[in-house]
């Protein structure tokens, strides 16, 4: 089950997250919903990311594919180049660079979709309704821990705590 609590500011929500983690909740079980980014202390709610790594990988993969493709295309129908090499690194470097950058851009965008969970549609957790300027915390907990968790959230400054139903 999920509990959701409304908070007035970032300090209160940071305190609530700290308290929940002290009670054994994992960062993956806690979510903060807001209409603008909430600045939390470093390391409080870590969201590990491989976006940079994948972007570099995307650039390397597409760059390499471009090199192989151009090499194949130039040899597939060898034009008369007057003794110059059929495949030239310098004259085609721009193409490889741009395709590598294209790889980095698409990889970044795909990783954004993946890491933000926007691609997940089925079985997603219920989302609390957000009031203008409000900050809401959602925590996934077992039914037997609900009462203690609710009390903990109120103690750290929650204005209200409600139960959220699972999406079928």
């Amino acid at each position, binding site marked *: 089950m999920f509990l959701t609590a409304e908070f007035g500011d970032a300090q209160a929500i940071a305190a609530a997250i700290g308290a929940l983690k002290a009670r054994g909740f994992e960062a993956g079980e806690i979510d903060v919903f807001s209409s603008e980014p909430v600045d939390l202390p470093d390391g409080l709610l870590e969201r590990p990311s491989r976006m940079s790594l994948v972007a570099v990988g995307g650039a390397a993969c597409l760059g390499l594919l471009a090199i192989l493709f151009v090499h194949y295309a130039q040899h597939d129908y060898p034009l008369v180049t007057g003794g110059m090499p059929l495949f030239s690194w310098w004259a085609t470097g721009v193409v490889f660079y741009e395709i590598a950058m294209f790889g980095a851009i698409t990889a970044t965008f795909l990783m954004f979709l993946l890491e*933000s969970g926007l691609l997940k549609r089925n079985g997603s957790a219920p989302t609390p309704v957000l009031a203008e300027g409000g900050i809401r915390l959602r925590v996934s907990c077992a039914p037997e821990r609900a009462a203690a968790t609710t009390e903990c959230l109120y103690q750290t400054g929650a204005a209200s705590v409600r139960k959220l139903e699972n999406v079928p």
Partner: protein
Amino acid sequence: METAIEIRTDSLRSTLWRPLSGASRGYRWAVFLAFLLGAWGLACWGYQIVRGIGVAGIRRPTMWGFYLVDFVFWIGISHAGTLISAVLRLTGAGWRTPVTRAAEAITVFALMIGALFPIIHLGRPLIFYWLFPYPNSRLLWPNFRSPLLWDLTAISTYLIGSVIYLYLPMIPDLADLGQHASGWRGRLYRLLSIGWTGSDRQWHALERAMKQMAGTILAVAVSVHTVVAWDFAMAVAPMWHSSIFGPYFVAGAIFSGIAALLVVLAIIRKALHLEAYVQPIHFENLGKLLLLMSLLWFYFTVGENLTAWYGNSPAEMTVFGDRVRGRFAPYFWLMVFCNFVLPFVLLSNRWLRSVRTVTLSAVAVLIGMWLERYLIILPTLSHPRLAAATGFYSPTWVEISITASTFAAMVLFYLIFCKLFPIIAIWEYKHVSHR
């Protein structure tokens, strides 16, 4: 000019959402006129396709005319958004928030317009897809060594990257709009917001992606205009074969990009009543940036011309002479006045710096930078190394119409964009203000 930022977030949403509904008489007239001029341009292009490229003024030896001038000009303007916005984002400039989306939209529209010109310029534009990498009926692949292929890959990458860079920070605003709008608008916003809920995972991913995109897009933006410069510099033509052409073009592109951004900001500030958000400080800061780029442009221009003059090579001196004291001299000195003298006088004195003078300087720079592109291309082509081949170019009504219509297209795209999406990133403005 006021130099303090007054933070206003109370009525931000209502102010920015107001232009999205209804259309004033002025708006409808502007759309109608821009559409009319744009349609005229399309008709002229159709006429050129039917009658052939001969209806344009390009003749031997000046095989590049207005179309290539426009191509370089619009690709330069496209540096307004992505590059400026990326630099401001990476340096954490807090005043950037009302500026970035307006700038990013310029990039996308300018690129769409600029990328059309090589196709308009083709003798047989209907087979432009031969540039795509697949073998033709004779099993020939495109020549990847050709700068035309460099342009294709560079501009395509930049356009896709710029669209993503414009789209990413729009997602939270689209989700917000989707909750409140109904009908087709509501459906459109909800579709584009792809299920955004505002969770911290999404904010983390968005901030990370935007930072990463800013870095990548900077590298692409610089490369794009360098590649455009190399279209010229790789030819062993007088006054083109220069090693500084890459940075010279990039500096010129940023220069004209800032000018375009200032003009757009001045118009939307007035038309959408955004005086509380697009404040004099934004014009002050961008005006200083414009002055810096003006000085840099002047440095490059002097360096480029002085070395040609000092070298005294006959081929280069012919082009140089025609440019500074021959047929092209009025354009050259007007360019110097617009790009350096006027901005320097108006922007270097803080008593003269105001929203009006900054905008005036920006308009002058746009004129000057178009002339600069003209003066880079035409004098060189008019004086090839073979002296007997000297010629002169004069544009026809078809080229002038198509050129004018691209400005109308820019206005039209922008008018539609402002009607569909908030022109300031609301969440980003509020977030930076709260910080």
